[in-house]
């Protein structure tokens, strides 16, 4: 094998994957994440970091259009995979890997892809991933000349400048409009939060959904699957809390539970629960986050773990009753809960609200 081929196969071994979940595609996402981990692939944090774009489930037209823009942001060599059923994940990723290693295909792709950002339409809500509209750059072709896009001083490259507004201390401060989601790791599928930021503090927020219906039929889940779903939410929250190690362990626990191995799953789950519960640093970071008078992010995290143990029909102490407190409030409640928080806290609060979407075992059994 010559040097070039060896380098290519090394590069493909280390690929980073941007996994996007269409509403209702969580089973496919679990399978895709698992298949990616089995290949030794790493989750990508942004399109710039990604070699492979994996779309899980069936995106609606609006989400599909956004995904095309995200696709434009992948630096390349790049590959795109569609996972339509959980069992198809391994095959889809294998094809993506082959495509990624195919030098001729990649060269052709580089030649034929758009060299300029797609034209903007004047509104602010078709931002790709998470950068609002500030980022549709493709590759670096020896310069940053997008002169053709210049619409005058008030909107360089078609992007309106930040406008001013009074901040919480009554001072004038720039306001930046940014769309969080729908393509953002550890973010609820299909959710878009249009926020106005001053610095990194959200001053107003509006939630909407893209990508199709959000009803996901969680009520009919078997206990191990329900526990797995909860543990996945825990993994995402831990990722956002900057603890990738614990998040990886949570994901492994999730996969064991999905395999139906309740005994091992229970053992791993209990280990995870005590590790997360013991961390004083985590408590310090998550305590007090969220709407006042409600359980904070740390409470919700521990409660989700307790409920997962409870799902398996084992004694978990008090998993709490009540269901989706924030889920019941709907997206508007979620949006208003994020106002006044800085970006990191917003991410944690949204992820914690997502933890409460499943009813508890008692509710399921009782109702």
């Amino acid at each position, binding site marked *: 094998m010559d040097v070039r081929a060896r*380098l*290519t196969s*090394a*590069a*493909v*071994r*280390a*690929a980073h994957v941007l996994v996007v979940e269409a509403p209702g595609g969580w089973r496919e996402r679990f399978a895709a994440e698992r298949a990616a*981990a089995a290949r*030794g692939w790493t989750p990508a*944090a*942004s399109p*710039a*970091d990604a*070699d492979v774009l994996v779309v899980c489930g069936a995106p609606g037209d609006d989400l599909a259009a956004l995904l095309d823009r995200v696709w434009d*942001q992948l*630096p*390349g*060599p790049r590959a795109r995979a569609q996972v339509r059923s959980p069992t198809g994940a391994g095959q889809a990723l294998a094809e993506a890997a082959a495509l990624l290693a195919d030098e001729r295909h990649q060269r052709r792709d*580089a030649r034929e892809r758009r060299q300029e950002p797609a034209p903007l339409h004047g509104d602010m809500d078709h931002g790709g991933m*998470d*950068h*609002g509209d*500030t*980022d*549709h*750059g493709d*590759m*670096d072709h020896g*310069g*940053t000349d*997008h002169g053709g896009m210049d619409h005058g001083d008030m909107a*360089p*490259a078609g*992007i309106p400048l930040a406008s001013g507004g009074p901040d919480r201390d009554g001072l004038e401060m720039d306001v*930046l409009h*940014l769309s969080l989601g729908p393509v*953002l*790791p*550890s973010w609820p599928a299909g959710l878009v939060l249009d926020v106005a930021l001053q610095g990194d503090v959200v001053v107003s927020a509006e939630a909407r959904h893209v990508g199709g219906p959000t009803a996901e039929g969680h009520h009919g889940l078997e206990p191990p699957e329900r526990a797995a779903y909860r543990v996945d939410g825990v993994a995402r929250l*831990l*990722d*956002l*809390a*900057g*603890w*990738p*190690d*614990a998040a*990886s*362990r949570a*994901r*492994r626990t999730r996969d064991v539970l999905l395999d139906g191995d309740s005994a091992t799953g229970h053992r791993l789950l209990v280990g995870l629960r005590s590790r997360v519960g013991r*961390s004083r*640093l985590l408590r310090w*970071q998550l305590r007090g986050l969220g709407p006042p008078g409600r359980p904070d992010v740390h409470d919700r995290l521990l409660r989700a773990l307790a409920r997962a143990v409870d799902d398996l029909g084992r004694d978990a102490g008090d998993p709490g009753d009540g269901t989706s407190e924030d889920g019941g409030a709907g997206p508007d409640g979620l949006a208003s809960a994020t106002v006044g928080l*800085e*970006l*990191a806290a917003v*991410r944690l609060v949204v992820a914690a609200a997502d933890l409460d979407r499943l009813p508890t075992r008692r509710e399921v059994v009782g109702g």
Partner: protein
Amino acid sequence: MADVSVVSPAWAPAAALLVLGGAWGAAALDGVLSGRSTGLPGRASSRRPVDEVARLMRQRRRTTVRADGLLWRVGGAAMLVAALLMVVVVPLGSWAVADLAVGVVWFNTMDVVVWAAVWLAGWGANSAHSLVGGYRFLAQALAYELPLMFALTAPPVAAGSLRVADIAAAQDGLWFAVWMPVAFGVYCIGVVAFSVWGPFAPAAGADIAGGVLAELSGVDRLLVLVGRYALLVAGAAFAVPMFLGGGSGPLLPAWTWVLVKTALLAAALVAVRRRVPAVRPDRFVEAGWVVLLPLVLLQVLVVAVIAVGRG
């Protein structure tokens, strides 16, 4: 005065290679440790840095609309440059690339350069998440820098010199890490923090799509990632003459001891990432000013009193 022979500048590339080798080792260790939690087999995870470098060398560079290209690239490269400049004052046994009378101040200057580097890397991309990452780093820097500066003054006070070799020589018999543990602890926190690593990596956090890394790809990203590991290694290397007795140790020659101590400390700093969640800058600022700063000032006071008492 401790004896250090200043080697010819032609040896500087060798020092740079040592730092890069250390960065490589740190990345490999992190690969193995993270492989253990994701369930990847050991062999695959130890060659992780090789694969990752191959991936990033193959990946295309990209830019963003209206990026501040020059400052963006300068910021990306400056972390590695700062790390390389840090180690020039670290004596490897009896050799050093530079033997400055104010070696400690030099190190401190370089760690302040990192402020600019990370912030520019966040600023240059003209992207909201990058910029938030850059500002997060500044907030974090406000929290760690003053405690770090005072932690850096404790060994010079005890040794009566700002020259790194003198400080190493002054630890004859008793390491400074032993009798000024608070300064050592705060120093280690500072190193992890200016390396944007582990608990102090919110500037590159997953919650803001990678923050300062969000828009970087290809070789630009590689440069920043290498710079991060290099800073961690340079920080560990500088701790050896400052707190860990320099090249002193039984049997082995002094230069070997410097390398061994550096490797062990760097490994410990790498491993921290697996153990703890991120510390958000808004909460860390409070801890930095209310807890760390008074503690380290007290430490300096104790050291100063002892130094005066000894005459």
